[in-house]
């Protein structure tokens, strides 16, 4: 039952109609760009330099709670004692997730139910790849291609990400993350020692596979992998403006009859 709800929520959250013809004009609908056929039967497109083209508007790819991607109890078995305690506390108090205050959700949750866009810049021999997030913090993540991490970077919400290509897979290595966000909506804790290695592969035209190695000796006894999937949005889709803080009434709910 829970899975049904989660799947349904994910579908509804994306809020993307099946047909481009259903889309309003400014979203690329009937009078928008000519629709091209999206299909899992088509291979991933390539850029002029031969690299796989990851660009496009995607949904999903990082919003599933990590524990649901592992065997029952596996995640907690990997946690150090403090992390087990913190995880249990957060589950008791889901409203304390900083995400509900419109703060960033970190590298995994930037690819949640909202649309998001991969941008490879320049379009060949990219030096930067950006992930533009429509939802929540309405922000971006930048991946530097062919660079090294700085020494001891100051911890930030998205950390310092460097990318390289291994064949058709973009490998993104991220350090320098702060511990102020919840790793996922279930409240999985982490520390500033968190090191993420993401392997992004466009396995067909409409599907991105993201295998993430979560390595955090401050939280877990050993590294482990989880796999997410993102789907290409319908042709002509655009990310839209979303300013979370403009009318966030969520904190009011804790104060009886405050409004």
């Amino acid at each position: 039952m829970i899975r049904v709800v989660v799947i349904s929520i994910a579908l509804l959250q994306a809020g993307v109609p099946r047909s481009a013809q259903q889309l309003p004009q400014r979203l690329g609908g009937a009078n928008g760009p000519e629709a091209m056929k999206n299909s899992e039967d088509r291979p991933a497109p390539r850029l002029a330099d031969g690299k796989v083209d990851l660009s496009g508007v995607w949904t999903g790819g990082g919003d599933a709670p990590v524990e649901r991607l592992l065997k029952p109890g596996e995640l907690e078995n990997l946690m150090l004692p403090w992390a087990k305690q913190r995880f249990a506390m957060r589950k008791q108090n889901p409203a304390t997730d900083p995400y509900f205050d419109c703060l960033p959700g970190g590298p995994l949750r930037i690819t949640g139910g909202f649309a998001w866009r991969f941008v490879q810049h320049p379009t060949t021999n990219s030096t930067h790849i950006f992930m533009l997030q429509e939802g929540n913090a309405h922000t971006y993540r930048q991946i530097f291609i062919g660079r090294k991490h700085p020494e001891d970077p100051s911890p930030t919400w998205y950390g310092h990400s460097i990318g390289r290509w291994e064949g058709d897979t973009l490998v993104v290595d991220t350090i320098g993350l702060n511990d102020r966000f919840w790793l996922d909506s279930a409240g999985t804790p982490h520390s500033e020692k968190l090191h993420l290695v993401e392997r992004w592969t466009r396995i067909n035209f409409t599907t991105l596979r993201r295998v993430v190695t979560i390595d955090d000796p401050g939280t877990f006894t050993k590294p482990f992998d989880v796999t997410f999937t993102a789907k290409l949005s319908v042709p002509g889709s655009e990310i839209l403006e979303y300013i979370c803080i403009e009318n966030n009434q969520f904190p009011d709910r804790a104060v009886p009859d405050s409004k």
Partner: protein
Amino acid sequence: MRMKLVGVMVGLLVGATSGIAHHSWPVEYDANKPISVKGVVSKVEWTNPHTHFYVDVIDENGKLTTWNFEMASTVALERGGWTRKTLPVGTTITVTGFGGRAVTTKAIANSMVTVDGKSLFVAPKN
């Protein structure tokens, strides 16, 4: 079973309204508080993380209560065909939904029908 269904409905609805489940819906709304009101739309907030519309309801004693109903994010509604003009102030509507846990005059909308029988969805369809 009934409770499960209600839970699913609320889950679907709030999931949809959040756009990314921005809120933890069980914290805010109570599946045991189904509500149905008829009144006049007095304000629409075409905003994020959620849209809100306010409905003035007068009970049999003439007492006015303004309900604050929550719907989807603008981006989710817009993809579903809404614009900021879809629900004009002054529209008489019947709304169903689920009441708030902490604030009794706040609710999550589950269905909306105008006085002339037009049904407006509150969550995007796929």
